[in-house]
């Protein structure tokens, strides 16, 4: 049977006879890697562009249309020591990138306008106390207007649009007071300039936009970066399938290029990337990623298989079905949709702050105007003072208070191995006081491990490992990995469903089922872990048994203890059988556990905890966890999780240890603390500045100084979030 790799799905024409592909590359960290990759790829004839993007960990390649096969690039990168996969930009990421560029453009326009208006304002401020002629002042004001008005019209778009959207939905957000403040300040300044008045606030208005755009851009950039990394991870998982393109010919194609009705081959040791039904073959499949159940299921003609199942023993031909046809998946999708719809719309801290803020500020301005009128000043002067109140209270520091902390905290979390899927996850995670763990793949490692390696003589174990390299069976792979085997035994033969055998130095070696190795007697005698898969190894007359199972994550115990120290409740909800769950709960000393739980039961339990006022953090990886991940207050998934779960979870953690869970909670708590502190700083500044504004003595100089002073204070305070995640457990 012929296997070809087909990457044509990812190649696009770049014009002028050039073709373009983007590859996500694993393990690029420094300038050295960058230079090595770019030189290595440029050396291939016909390649016209090879450029590494270190931020997004990607390579952009262009070459002359012709004989060059994109698979060659991947092979070349492999020779250089990097794993690469073709990458396809999702539409969501493309939108984020476009939005991010637009904000940067607005920020550029606003910043340049601010600098130029400032250049005109400073002579006016100093001229007011020296010898500037009123005509010169007017001239400078008009010039400021010329710069500030178009710049504000352009750079203010993000705020005006968002405020308009909120108002047309009959709600309010932070952008409503911002837009009102900016428009009134500009409008009043124009009127004052026409009337040859002393003060105009063009500088304050445009500076306000600049500072707010900094906050907006940081927020957006954080989201864009997370998306890029999540996109790479999806690409690195290499979701491909072996599709039959002829009766006997298969081609390894990306999942995106597979359609319902196609037939794919699922070989032993492969993880299924599609949903479908078995049409030929017989095998055992591991569905733990779907159901949490660690016992293997027999698959034969007619058995539905889901993306994420691992094929264990035999080859299967699978007919791909549309997602909704598979019954289990349909049920999970329905629950997930419900949970997402019911997800009590969490109100972000910034929105809660603005809901209190806007009415207070607008009322203060109105009262100021009325107060001055009653006190006997003219309407004109009263309105000028009222607008000054609006300008000085405009939520400049408030707009920076949260995004700056989020950016710094997400950077700290990234270092600890945690990626954020949603911007407000930090706030919600900080509130979590009860953690529900799934067992399989979350508390335990997703891959298998040999538990009794110490009982076997090292030389025999090494031989067993080398023999195991000749088999695709996941248990064999675990043995090979545990023995750290590198060179397979030449001439080893795999007997499907039985094991592998080989002859070395006239001694027959066998690895596989106990019956295959004649070791049933040993199995009968030993008291073994009921959870483990047993494989036997025979070397001539010597016989050994190996117990292979999913081990707990190495630091699970410490992490659970650390959570308890922080007064966070811990609980296991697993779809697996009771003995397995009891064993894990016992090993980790978790008092509360439930076994054999269905996705609907998991949601019910979360709802129950919610009613009691707990804020639940759900940590799970299986597809059966996806609905409960959506239902929980905040959720986390390991990187090995099923596609659906990872997309649903608010945070994703990398690597084998469980420690990122605690690290993330610590960072989030610290970040929330800093966010609150920043909000208080912003409010404190207003409490000082507003009386000055109400009294009517605010000059544009005071407004500008107060605004930049408070913003810089808030930014500096946010930087403290960096030291958040030093200590993990």
């Amino acid at each position, binding site marked *: 049977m012929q296997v070809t790799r087909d990457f044509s799905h990812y190649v696009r024409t770049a014009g002028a006879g050039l073709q373009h592909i983007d590859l996500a590359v694993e393990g690029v960290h420094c*300038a050295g890697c960058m*230079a090595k990759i770019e030189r290595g790829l440029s050396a291939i004839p016909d390649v016209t562009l090879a450029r590494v993007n270190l931020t997004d960990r990607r390579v952009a390649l262009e070459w002359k249309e012709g004989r060059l096969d994109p698979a060659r690039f991947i092979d070349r990168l492999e020779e250089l020591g990097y794993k690469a996969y073709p990458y396809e930009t999702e539409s969501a990421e493309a939108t984020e990138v476009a939005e991010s560029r637009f904000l940067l*453009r607005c920020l550029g326009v606003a910043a340049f306008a601010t600098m130029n208006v400032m250049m005109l304002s400073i002579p006016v401020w100093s001229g007011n106390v020296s010898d500037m002629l009123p005509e010169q002042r007017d001239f400078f004001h008009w010039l400021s207007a010329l710069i500030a008005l178009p710049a504000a019209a352009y750079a203010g778009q993000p705020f005006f649009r968002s405020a308009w959207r909120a108002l047309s939905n009959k709600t309010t957000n932070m952008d409503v007071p911002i837009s009102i403040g900016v428009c009134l300040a500009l409008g009043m300044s124009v009127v004052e300039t026409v009337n040859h008045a002393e003060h105009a606030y063009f500088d304050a208005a445009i500076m306000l936009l600049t500072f707010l755009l900094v906050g907006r851009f940081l927020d957006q950039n954080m989201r864009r970066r997370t998306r890029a990394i999540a996109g790479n991870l999806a690409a690195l998982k290499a979701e491909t399938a072996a599709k039959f393109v002829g009766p006997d010919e298969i081609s390894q194609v990306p999942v995106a290029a597979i359609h319902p009705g196609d037939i794919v081959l699922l070989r032993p040791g492969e993880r299924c990337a599609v949903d479908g039904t078995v049409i030929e073959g017989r095998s055992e499949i591991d569905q733990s990623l779907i159901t949490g159940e660690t016992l293997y299921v027999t698959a034969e003609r007619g058995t539905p298989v889901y993306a994420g199942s691992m094929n264990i023993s035999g080859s299967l031909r699978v007919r791909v079905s549309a997602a909704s046809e598979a019954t289990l998946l349909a049920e999970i999708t329905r629950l997930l949709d419900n949970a997402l719809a019911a997800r009590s719309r969490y109100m972000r801290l910034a929105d809660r702050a603005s809901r209190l803020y806007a009415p207070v500020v607008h009322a203060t301005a109105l009262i100021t105007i009325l107060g001055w009128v009653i006190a006997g000043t003219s309407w004109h002067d009263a309105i000028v003072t009222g607008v000054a109140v609006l300008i000085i209270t405009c939520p400049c520091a408030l707009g920076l208070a949260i995004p700056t902390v989020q950016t710094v905290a997400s950077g700290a979390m990234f270092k600890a191995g945690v990626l954020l899927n949603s911007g407000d996850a930090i706030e919600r995670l900080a509130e979590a006081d009860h953690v529900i763990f799934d067992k399989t793949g979350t508390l335990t490692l997703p891959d298998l491990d040999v538990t009794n390696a110490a009982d076997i003589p090292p030389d025999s174990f090494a031989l067993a490992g080398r023999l195991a390299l000749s088999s695709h069976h996941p248990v064999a792979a675990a043995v090979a990995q545990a023995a750290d085997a590198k060179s397979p035994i030449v001439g080893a033969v795999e007997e499907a469903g039985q094991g592998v055998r080989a002859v070395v130095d006239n001694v027959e070696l066998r690895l596989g089922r106990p019956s295959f190795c004649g070791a049933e007697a040993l199995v009968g005698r030993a008291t073994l872990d009921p959870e483990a898969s047993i494989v036997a190894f025979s070397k001539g007359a010597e016989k050994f048994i190996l117990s292979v199972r999913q081990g707990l994550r190495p630091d699970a115990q410490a992490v659970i203890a650390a959570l308890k120290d922080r007064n966070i409740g811990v609980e296991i909800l697993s779809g697996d059988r009771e003995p397995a769950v009891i064993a894990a709960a016992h090993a980790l000393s978790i008092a509360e556990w439930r076994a054999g739980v269905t996705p609907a039961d998991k949601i019910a339990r979360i709802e129950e905890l919610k009613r009691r006022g707990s804020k639940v953090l759900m940590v799970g990886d299986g597809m059966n966890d996806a609905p409960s991940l959506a239902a929980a207050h905040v959720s986390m998934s390991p990187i090995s999780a099923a596609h659906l779960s990872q997309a649903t979870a608010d945070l994703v953690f990398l690597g084998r240890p469980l420690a990122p869970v605690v690290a993330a909670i610590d960072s989030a708590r610290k970040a929330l603390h800093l966010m609150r502190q920043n909000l208080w700083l912003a409010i404190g500044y207003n409490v000082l500045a507003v009386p000055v504004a109400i009294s009517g003595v605010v000059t544009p100089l005071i407004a500008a100084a107060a605004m930049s002073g408070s913003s810089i204070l808030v930014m500096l305070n946010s930087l403290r979030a960096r030291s958040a995640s030093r200590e993990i457990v």
Partner: protein
Amino acid sequence: MEILVILVPLALMLGGAGLAAFLWSLRSGQYDDLDGAAWRAIADDEPPPQEAPAKR
């Protein structure tokens, strides 16, 4: 104060030139890879010579 006739347009032009340069750098993708750009500045243009004798 006649100097303003020269200085003000000059200042505006400089500001405009700065903005144009920023927009150009943005459009040509210079902000797409900030981490990489930091390293490129110190990377060698050519592959280092093989076993170059140490200069003293």
